[in-house]
């Protein structure tokens, strides 16, 4: 009934590889890519959901915007996988917020996602230049 996390993550990585092209439109943001963005965003310091969404938007120069409808399910899923740890903490929002940080497993996962992203983007790059 449950798919173990490892299998799920494989499926996701392949999803990215299979579809190939990644559109920068938020609605088409691929699941695997979203995972990478979230993991990367909180790699340096723990953040709550609001801040994660904001930071992705700001750092991508407003190109990428993550809707709440996909952000929270993704956060919960990553937590479920054991890659994120969540804590209720006082925040800059003036009330306690659920703050996410990376676990050790999460760091490894980030490493893996980055690798596969690099492979993919250089392949796309190559293809674009050759064609």
């Amino acid at each position, binding site marked *: 009934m*449950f798919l*173990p996390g490892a299998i799920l993550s494989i499926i996701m990585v392949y999803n990215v590889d299979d579809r190939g092209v990644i559109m920068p439109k938020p609605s088409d943001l691929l699941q695997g890519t979203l995972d990478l963005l979230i993991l990367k965003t909180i790699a340096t310091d723990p953040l709550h959901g609001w801040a994660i969404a904001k930071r992705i938007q700001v750092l991508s120069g407003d190109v990428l915007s993550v809707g709440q*409808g996909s952000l929270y*399910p993704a956060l919960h899923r990553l937590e479920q*996988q*054991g890659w994120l740890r969540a804590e209720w903490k006082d925040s800059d929002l003036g009330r306690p*917020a659920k703050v996410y940080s990376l676990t050790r*497993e999460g760091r490894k996962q980030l490493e893996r996602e980055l690798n596969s992203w690099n492979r993919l983007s250089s392949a796309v790059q190559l293809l674009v230049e050759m064609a």
Partner: protein
Amino acid sequence: MRFSRVLIHRLQSLFRRSRADADLQREIEVHFEQLVKEAMASGAGESEARMMARRQFGPMEKTKEECRDSRRVNHIDDFMRDVRYALRTIRTKPGFSVPALLSLTLGIGANIAIFGVVNAVLIRPLPYPQPEKLVGVFNSAAYSSLVIKEWPLSLEMYAAYKENARSFEEFGVWTPGTAAVTGRGEPEEVATVAMTHGVLRALGVRAYLGRWFSSADELRGAQKTVILSYNYWQRRFGGDEHVLGRLVLIDFVAYQIVGVMPRKFEFLNLAPDVFLAQSVVAGAPGSQDADCSGVARLKPGIGLAQANRDIVRVLRIWGAKTGLEQYLEQLHVKPNIHSLKEDVIGDVGAVLKILMGALALVLLLVCANVANLVQARAQARRGEFATRAALGAGWGRIAGQVLIESLALATLGGAAGLSLAYAGLRLLATHGPATLPRVADTSIDALSILFALACSLLSGILFGLVAVLKSGLNIRPQMARGASQSADQVRAQNAFVIAQVAVALVLLVGAGLLVRSFIALSAVRPGFTHPEQIQTIRLFIPEAQIRDPERVAQVEAEILHKFAAIPGVAAAGFATALPLELEYHNGNPISVEGKTPLGQIPPNRTIKSISPGLFAALGTRLIAGRDFTSNDLMSNRHVAIVSENMAREYWSKPRDALAKRIRINGESQWSVVVGVAENVYEDGVDQPPPGLVYFPGVRRGVAFAIRSNRAGTQGLLKEITAEIHAVDPSLPLAQVRTLNDLYRLTMARRSFALVLLGIAAAMAMTLSMIGVYGVLAYAVAQRRKEISIRVAMGAEPRTIRALFLRQGLILTCFGGAIGLASARGLSPWMASLLFGVKPFDPLIYGVAGAVILVAALTASSIPARRAAFLNPIEALRGE
């Protein structure tokens, strides 16, 4: 590691469901408030800002649902909901659940019960330490066409094996018997096992009190010793702890009690009261008689083949020492060392396997029937399914529900089956055939429960899957409307029915062949008549009681005389062994004057010493010559009576045997044949009658046969006991039974198989009848409109009935043909159970086919009738 953490997370989210939900709510609120703040910062009023935020956030509930989904607790939740729903369905739809549960209970219950027996008899290891090292030690011998697989050892051979064999860690021999215990209250007959000291050592079960036998107990002139079984110790000595060292009189000889075995100790498949130390004295009388069973524990690393090779060498040494090499050569004596379990189980393994197979087939039929029911229910719910699919339920979700419903049914059926099996096994242990070894310790153990669980789950998955696949749950919304049965499903149902008819036919043929065997067995004239009128009783007069053999003969003749005078007794006689009393049989090679070549060992014959009147008491006919007279008996005249088959073997005509001379090989005195008696099926009605030689004579142990129509009554027994005690009040009576008890005992294995196979066949028949009925009833319901139109157009009821009867007939014929072919393929498996009938008995095949045909026609005639007398107006209006 990580997987376990994931699991913990999920369990947490499951059990702290409400907390997790509140958490989620708060988290989303934080985000939402932030959106509102942002909107207000850009100048909107509060209510406007809230509206903008809501629009920007999107569907909040959907997001929450997705968050929950990603925690994957919904599966468990769905599962619980499905289970609750399934249980409710079972409770509220008895028309569907009662037949399903009933057939599952019967099918699974029967399988668990027979598995309980198989487990106890075949699977469970013998109750000794390292049982795989234990072997039974016998020889095999062959003389012309006669092959003896388990030829026992003699005490002389035992001594030789003990001295020379290298592959045994422990080795001993034992003989079962009976003995009289006197001196404490009423004289009592007990079951004994006489054994050498190696037997208990080999089995390796420590005594509860005291010690095992030792080699010192076996020496000439040593104090006789006895070990008590736990039950006998409790019964006779009240569990007295100080029983060791006391003396008991066994056959009027004092035995010292040296031990008590533990309660759980089983001696192979016997239940002896006492164990006696066998004295092993070289050259003692009887030490050449081959009547000991051997048991040994193999040395580590020694296999059966090695042990057998080792004994070939030992036999050669023994032959050279005793000068019997030629004898061993002629009889092709070879060692036969086999796993001890074979000795304990005997030949019931084959029977149990057949029954297990038959009941597994029945369970398959049950599954087919329940699959039909579940499918029909799924069919009825197609509208509901399609609606749900249209609302977004996945195919897997709906199929899962049907499967869970099936599993719930199967689990309930399995639980009920388990209790049924428990009751059945209790019944079997108390009323089952006594010849079934180890059946007393049949019980529902962990393995049986595991089996029950596997049975339930597998059948649930089986019929659930069939229902899911065959009811075409590949839901498309348009199915919500014209929900009708597709040709595919009709085909599936037909296939079920064909399979059911086939299996039922196979089981019917099996049961039929057994019935035929029974008829053939009861048609055999066993060499005795009306065994229910023959009262048997065994007497043993030990040497310690009456020393003089002449006196023993007088006492026994006197008792016989008194028996014959009891009112209502038609005839009485005694013999060293009565027919079917296998444990008392005795055999010797018999030479025939002028026929047996010098220096050659003649064939072995069953030898009996009998009194005059025995033939009359048993109802054995004399074919030629005369019976013995009391003069023959008292004056020790050298006369003999032979069986018809032996007479024909040498002289072709029985009459020609008269006045010829025979003798036991190796003796000098010839005996004159004065009579020829009809063959007696000594070894059981299903075994060929052995060659028999009767001599007039009296032994210390004899069995009386008393023919009276009061046989088996307490009244007669009292009179018999009174007569015996009038002669000597200390003589115990043993084996008080009628010959019919013995006769039935030899049939027990077959009747056990017949009863169970009969039950299986009846269940299969019923199930296939229900199947045929179901298919036709469904077809009639589906075709109401068509039938009405036909009737309206003037079709005769007869034609319509024939239409459906034909459909039933076609299905049955298909199933029947497959069934007959499978029965032909499978029936050779039961050859060992058959008697007087070939596995391919055309009569039985014909009868079984006819029975199935009639049953199927009966089942189809009800819906066919309904179709024929359908009121067309009503039917058309009803559409």
